[in-house]
C-alpha cells in the first residue's frame, strides 16, 4: 500500500517540497533574530537536503543516499548538542539571544 502510494507521487513533488523547505530554512536563517530560531532554520535546511537524498535513493534504488542521510542526522544531532550548549552559554553571558547584539567576540 505504501509502495503504491509512493509510486503515484511524481519525483518532482518531492524535490519541490525539499526546495520549499530549504528556502524556508534560508529565509528563516536570514530574517529571524532569535538565535534558537536561526538554529532551527539550519536544521530545517539539513532535513530538506535529507529529503532529496532519500527521494533519489528510492528513485534509483541506490542505498548510498540513505546511508548519507544517517550520517547527516548523526552530525546534526551532534551539532544540536554542541549548538544548544553554546546558546545557553551565550545567553548566560549576554542575557540576550538576539543575533544582532552578539556580533562581537569580546565581552
Amino acid at each position, binding site marked *: 500500500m505504501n509502495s503504491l502510494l509512493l509510486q503515484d507521487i511524481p519525483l518532482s513533488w518531492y524535490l519541490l517540497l525539499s526546495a520549499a523547505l530549504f528556502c524556508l530554512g534560508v529565509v528563516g*536563517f*536570514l*530574517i529571524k533574530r532569535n538565535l534558537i530560531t536561526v538554529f532551527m532554520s539550519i536544521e530545517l535546511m539539513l532535513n530538506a537536503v535529507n529529503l532529496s537524498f532519500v527521494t533519489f535513493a528510492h528513485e534509483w534504488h541506490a542505498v548510498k543516499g540513505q546511508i548519507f542521510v544517517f550520517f547527516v542526522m548523526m552530525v546534526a544531532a551532534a551539532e544540536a548538542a554542541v549548538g544548544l550548549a553554546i546558546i545557553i552559554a551565550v545567553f548566560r553571558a549576554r542575557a540576550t539571544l538576539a543575533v544582532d547584539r552578539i556580533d562581537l567576540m569580546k565581552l
Partner: protein
Amino acid sequence: MTSFLSNGLHLWLIPLLPFAGFLINGLLGRRMPKALVTTVALLAPLAAFGIVLNAGWALCSGQLQVPYIETCPVGWINAGALHIDFSFVLDQLSLVMLLVVTGVGFIIHVYSVGYMNDEDGYARYFSYLNLFLFFMTVLVLAGNALLMFVGWEGVGLASYLLIGFYFQKNSAANAGKKAFIVNRIGDLGFLIGMFLLLANFGTLTFSEIATKLGQDAGWQGGVVTVIAFCLLLGATGKSAQLPLYIWLPDAMEGPTPVSALIHAATMVTAGVYMIARNHVLFDHSPFALGTVAVVGAATALFAATIGLVQNDIKRVLAYSTISQLGYMFLGCGVAAYSAAIFHLMTHAFFKALLFLAAGSVIHAIGGEQDLRKMGGLWKKLPVTFAVTTVGVLAIAGFPPFAGFFSKDAILYAAFAQGGSGRILWFVGLVTALLTSFYMFRLWYLTFLGKPRSEAAHHHHSTPWSMLAPLVILALLSICGGWIGIGPFSAFLAPSVGPRASEAGSAQLELILTGVAVFVAFLGWLIADRLYRQKPEQPAELAAALPGTYNLVANKYYVDEFYGATVVKPLLAGSKYLLGWVVDSAILGGAAWLLAGIATFAGAILQRWQSGNIRSYAAWLAAGAAAVLLFVVVPWSAVLASLSAIHFGVAGH
C-alpha cells in the same frame, strides 16, 4: 706570479691590516678603552710599514724578480675574454709610494693620538684613518686599473668622511660634499678611460697594456690621446689641479692631521702616481703629455698667487699643496716621471711636517687659524718653530733641504726639454719665487713679531706624541733629498723609464740650480721686507692695487664662477625640472592617482563589510543561487535561440 697564501712577501697583508683596524675600531671602538683603541689604530699601520720595509729590503737586495706580483687564487671578474684578478704588484714605483704612505701615515697616526686626545669620536676618527690607509695601499698596489679604481674611490670616501668629521658644523659637512662631488667629475673621466682601455686593448692590467702598446707602433695619438685625456681628468680631480682644484682648500675643514695625511702627503698625490703608473700611455701621446705639463704649470702658478694673500694658516698650506702638486704634474708632463715621484716623496715629508706644525700651533693657541691673530709664538713653541723653519726652508727650495733637490730636478727637466719647456721652466721659477714668499710670510706672521691677539698669549703644552712626529718629519725634510735625483731615477727606471733626455750639461744644471736658489732667496727677502721691516706695507700695497688684491683675495672668483655656471643651473634644474615636474607632478601625481583609485574603490567595497552576519549569509545565499542559475540554465541553447530570432528578423 705568486699566490696570496704561498710563502712570499705577503703584500696582501699591507692593506688588510689597516682594514682589520678599521673594523675593530669602527665596530667596537666605542665600547673599548681609549688605550686599546690607540693600540689597534697604531699597530695596523706600523705592521703594514714593517711588511713594506721587508718587501723593500727584498727588492733592493736583488733577491726579487721585479715586478713581483701576488694574485688572489680566486678570480674577481671572469666574463668571456675578460679576466680581472685581485693582483698586487710590487715594483720600484709602488715601493716608494708604499714607503711614503705607510711611513708618513704611521707618523701622522702617532701625531693624531695627541691631537685628537680631547675630541669626541676618537675611535671613529682612527677607524676612518685606518680605512683610508686600506684604500690607499690598495690603490698603490693594484696591478690593474679596476683595482686601482676601487682604491681611488675608497680614498675619496675616507676623505669625505674625514673632511666631514665635525659633521655638526655645517661648513664641514658642505666641504665634505664638495670634495666628493668634484671628485666624481674626475672619476667619470677615469671610468671612461677604463672603458676605452677595455674596448681597445681588451685588458686593464697595466703591464699588458704597456706590452701591447710597445708591440705596435700604430698606437700613437688618436684613441690613446683620448684615453690619456680621460685619465688626466681623473688625475686633476683627485690631485686638485685646474680646473677641479676647488675642493682642496675647503677640505681644510677636517682635523689638521687629516689635512696632513690625506690632503697633502698621500691621497692628493694619487693622480701623479696614476699618471706615472700609466706613463706608457702618455708617452704614446705627446699632445696629452704636453697638456699634463701645461695643466701642472698653470696650476702651480695659479694656486701660488692665491696663496699669497690667504689669512688662514691651513688655507695657505692648502694652496701651497695645490701649487706643489702642479710641480709634480709639470714633472710628469715633461716625461720626468722619476723627478715627479721624487718631488712627491719630499713633498710628503715637508708638507706633512708643515701641516702638523700648523696643527701644533692651532692646538696650542686654542683653535685659532687666522695668521693675523698669531705672532711671536717662537718663544712659546720652540720645537714647533724649529721644525716649521725646516719645513719652510725645504718647500722654498734652499739647499740642502729635501725640496731643493726635487724641485730643482723638475725645473731642470722642463728646461732641458727645450722649446716650450723653457716657458714651463720660467713659470715654475716664478712659482718658486711666490712659494718662497708666501711660506716666509706665514713664518713671519706666525712666529715672529708681537702677539696680535689674546689667544696668542695663552697656550697649552704640546704632548710628546705630537712633538716626536714633528722631529722625525723634520729630519726627513732635511735628509729626504740627499739621495739625489740621479740615483733615484736610476732606481725607478725599471718602472717609469729612464731619466728624460740629457740635453743639458752639468754646467747648465749648475746655473739653473743657482737661479732657483737665488729666486728662493729673493722670495725670503721680499717677505722679510714686507712682514718684518715694514709690517704696515702689505696693507698699503693692497690699498694701492685694490682691483688686483680683491681679485686674488677672492681666489679669482672661481668658486663664484662655478657657482653661477654649474652649481646654480644644476640646482635649479634639480629643483624645478626634476623636483617639481618629474618628482612632484609626474611620479607624485601617479602615486596620488593610484592611491585615489584604491581609496575610492575601497570606499565603495567597504559597504560589503557591514559586520552583520546575516548580510554575509544573504550574500552567500545569493552567490549560491547565482552559481545554481549558471549551472542549471542551458545558456548555450538560450543564446542560440536568441541569435536565431535576431538573424531571423534581419533576414527578412
